């Protein structure tokens, strides 16, 4: 089983996770920029974070044979904080970077006018930079949020083909599918979707344009949920080709629209700006062989 996790926050995870993910078949990830749990207070703390998503984190991933790309944006929650919104002016220079495969996560949290403005501006930034957009749908008042998101997408310069609507569930999948966008599902231990429900949604709506992610982060989450959905699909009678479509070809097709997806893991350098992940013990981690070897 080859797996592409199209939404995972690896900066919040350990090298043990990378190792377990590689063992489970994960060979590529996309890390969307998001809220860190602790509110940011300035655009500079965004730019340091963006630099980490473009520098240190791909280096870490490469040590474990995993290709790492990212999506950059001002997240919906912090779009409400006037101390953070100036980062919008910094985004254009970041959206030029090779490893940026979409603008995201953008979307709604509380559905405020400030969130409207940030979403609209960033959909336009995606169009201007030839990038697709990863759009988070809100956790509270979800269906209403999905509808407002779809309206905003319809009004923007981006084709729905270039939009991934994420964190969908049973109540939002129908209208999301009708919008023509790609359909993202986050599978969590307690909240969002679980494996069995994911299989039911795939049965009802088909695997076309469906992406499954772990959205693993600093909260209770599981970076192996993608693999677990693949196993649940096989147990429920889906074929290996369906699993490969959902867990690999669909995310590849969506993010390849950026023209920037590189799935050959670059040969891992021993250090990144003088730092290694080895903590001074040569060969300490059981580093898997790079992809293709």
């Amino acid at each position, binding site marked *: 089983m080859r797996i592409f996790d199209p939404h995972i926050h690896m900066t919040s995870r350990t090298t043990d996770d990378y190792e377990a993910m590689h063992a489970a078949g994960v060979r590529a990830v996309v890390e969307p920029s998001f809220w860190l749990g602790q509110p940011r207070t300035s655009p500079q703390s965004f730019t340091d974070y963006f630099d980490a998503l473009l520098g240190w984190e791909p280096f870490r991933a490469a040590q474990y044979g995993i290709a790492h790309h990212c999506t950059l944006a001002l997240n919906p929650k912090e779009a409400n904080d006037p101390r953070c919104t100036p980062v919008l002016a910094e985004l254009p220079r970041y959206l030029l970077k090779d490893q940026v495969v979409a603008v995201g996560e953008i979307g709604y949290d509380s559905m405020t006018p400030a969130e409207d403005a940030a979403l609209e501006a960033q959909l336009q930034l995606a169009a201007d930079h030839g990038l697709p957009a990863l759009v988070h749908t809100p956790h509270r008042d*979800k269906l*209403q949020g999905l509808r407002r998101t779809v309206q905003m997408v319809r009004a923007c310069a981006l084709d729905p083909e270039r939009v991934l609507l994420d964190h969908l569930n*049973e109540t939002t999948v129908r209208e999301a599918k009708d919008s023509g966008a790609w359909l993202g599902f986050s599978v969590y231990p307690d909240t969002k979707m679980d494996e069995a429900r994911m299989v039911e949604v795939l049965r009802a709506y088909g695997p076309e344009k469906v992406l499954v992610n772990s959205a693993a982060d600093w909260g209770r989450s599981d970076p192996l949920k993608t693999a677990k959905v693949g196993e649940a699909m096989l147990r429920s009678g889906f074929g290996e080709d369906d699993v490969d479509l959902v867990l690999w070809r669909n995310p590849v097709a969506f993010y390849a629209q950026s023209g920037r997806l590189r799935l050959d893991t670059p040969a891992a350098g021993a250090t990144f700006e003088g730092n290694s992940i080895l903590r001074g013990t040569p060969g300490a981690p059981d580093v898997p062989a790079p992809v293709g070897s």
Partner: protein
Amino acid sequence: MTTVPARHDTPADTGAPGLPPGLDGPARAWLADALTEAARAAQAEADPGGTWQIRFAEAGRRCGPGHADAARVELLAAARPGVADLTALYRQGTAAERRAVLLALGRLEPAAAEGLALVEDALRTNDTSLVAAALGPYAAAHLPAHAWRHGVLKCLFTGVPVAAVAGLSARARGDGELGRMLRAYAAERTAAGRPVPHDLTRVLALTEEP
């Protein structure tokens, strides 16, 4: 030398204004001094040393975690900082200090523009103690309907008992839009095969009262 006084080793003294009940002797003496400093700062044009703000920061270790919120709220009530200082205390504060600022808003009644910025900041966090503290009497009086409804939903999402929401009955009663949001959330829980929180049913019933 600044060892944390042992908890509950001195009979609690109660009754003095501004002092939370249950504080042991050393903590009680420390807080009484700190409140005097804070009251002096409230009288002064400026508080050059900001001594009471140092007391505000150290109140947790001085009074013990069980009394820290109450001690800090009393310090704020005594010092009556302006919105700029209050905002700085919140922004530079630990989660506990931020919580105290939120809990004190109802007594300090800062101008809505500045006070609500703090409430809204707290409602964006996922720290349940901040979410709960943000929905006190100040939010009940000033928070606009949309943000308040999202605050109530956030309580249901994060497991904050809605009993923490000040003025819940008065604001929820007859709120059709809140009712719609609650019914949609209940439908989502049901579709996921998950139980509908008891608190949701309770608030929904309130929205259906005339």
